């Protein structure tokens, strides 16, 4: 009494995987934008900016993503809006991604030798000029591999949005399982699709790391 062929299972999962991909891209792009703002707050000169950014990062890195999703889902609802699952998912994932990216990038900026700051400041450059022409171009080379590597965590993070009811790959897996009673096949395929999404990212992160190998060039 099971009309699902293996192809039907795979086709439905692949259709749902589009939403995983879309949510991953939205989270990564949005997270990068918020992350850059956080980065500047974190490495800035003032007192309030770094303190805020440090607290933000500690809060988001010290609590489960699942809880952040729940809080976004129910917290946005407190304002009287009817929150669709995709909105809560996107908001939570963007804020979560931003915390990690800001911290990764901070490490990259700090890896730029101190002499570079001094040299550029002795040339009479202002803070923004130093950032734009001296520090960020060097930090960017260091930042590429770990950033690509973190995108894998974002793709995997989207799986948790199924719990607040966003229909992506994982949720589709549960739904197809409930229809077919073939959890082994279905979750096997789900894992395989995730693997096909994540593995190229992991691999390119490794290759980039070897190619750019900037982290060890200065020593």
């Amino acid at each position, binding site marked *: 009494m099971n009309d699902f062929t293996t192809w039907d299972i795979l086709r439905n999962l692949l259709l749902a995987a589009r939403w995983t991909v879309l949510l991953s891209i939205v989270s990564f792009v949005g997270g990068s934008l918020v992350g850059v703002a956080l980065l500047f707050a974190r490495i800035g000169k003032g007192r309030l900016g770094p303190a805020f950014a440090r607290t933000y990062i500690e*809060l988001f890195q*010290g*609590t*489960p*993503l*699942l*809880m*952040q999703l*729940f*809080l976004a889902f*129910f*917290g946005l*609802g*407190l*304002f*009287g809006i009817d929150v669709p699952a995709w909105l809560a998912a996107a908001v939570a994932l963007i804020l979560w991604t931003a915390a990690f990216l800001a911290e990764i990038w901070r490490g990259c900026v700090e890896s730029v030798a101190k002499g570079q700051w001094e040299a550029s400041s002795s040339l009479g450059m202002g803070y923004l000029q130093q950032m734009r022409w001296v520090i960020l171009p060097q930090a960017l080379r260091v930042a590429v591999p770990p950033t690509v590597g973190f995108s*894998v965590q974002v793709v*995997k*993070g*989207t*799986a*948790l949005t*199924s*719990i607040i009811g966003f229909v992506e790959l*994982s949720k589709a*897996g*549960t739904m197809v*399982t409930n229809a077919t009673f*073939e*959890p*082994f096949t*279905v*979750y*096997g395929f*789900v*894992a395989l699709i*995730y*693997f096909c999404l*994540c*593995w190229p990212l*992991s691999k390119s992160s490794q290759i980039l790391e070897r190619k750019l190998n900037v982290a060890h060039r200065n020593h």
Partner: protein
Amino acid sequence: MNYAFDFGWLADYWPVLLKGIGITVELTLVGGVLGVSLGIACAWARVLGPGWLKPIVAAYVEMIRNTPFLIQLFFIFFGLPALGLRMGELPAANLAMVINLGAYGCEIIRAGIQATPRGQFEAGASLGMSRIQTFWYVVLVPALQRIWPALSSQIVIVMLGSAAVSQIAAEDLTFAANFIQSRTFRAFETYFAATLIYLALAIVLRQLLRGLGWTIFPRRTAR
């Protein structure tokens, strides 16, 4: 926003939360100890193990690191019974955490082992130590010391990730929060409280692991 926050439910439901915290701590403890052990074994296999074992361990590590924990959990709990491997929700949650931490731990520990200078192996051998002895005393302990901060963060990440085990009805802290909010309809307050507890657990766990590092590796030389 005219919503009155109400934490009054805490008075009635704190034992439920406490039980959930207990399960989360237990899962983290078992998952941490066994996961790190598995990580050490896999790191040994990848660096010094026999040739046929290396690709198998590499495949395991890649597979786990490139799929979400939630799916690993579902596969173990819902998928494996099809192969006749049926287990309760707590053992399944534990197994998933061990397998997950094992893969990440393997990569972290491997980095530590590979940073060991070649001469250390030779020095060990010249003292008449067996390969196993050399690995254990000469290679592993300094390697663990080197990567302890990274390993500690990974253990904290696994603890936070364990929130997902509520989805297979393992009664951890998140499960407790789900239960409470379904009774009280105070979803935001409940998850807020649970989030704060997770934050506290993460901070305490990080400090404990740092302390543990200081005790296991006493000869910490400042360079």
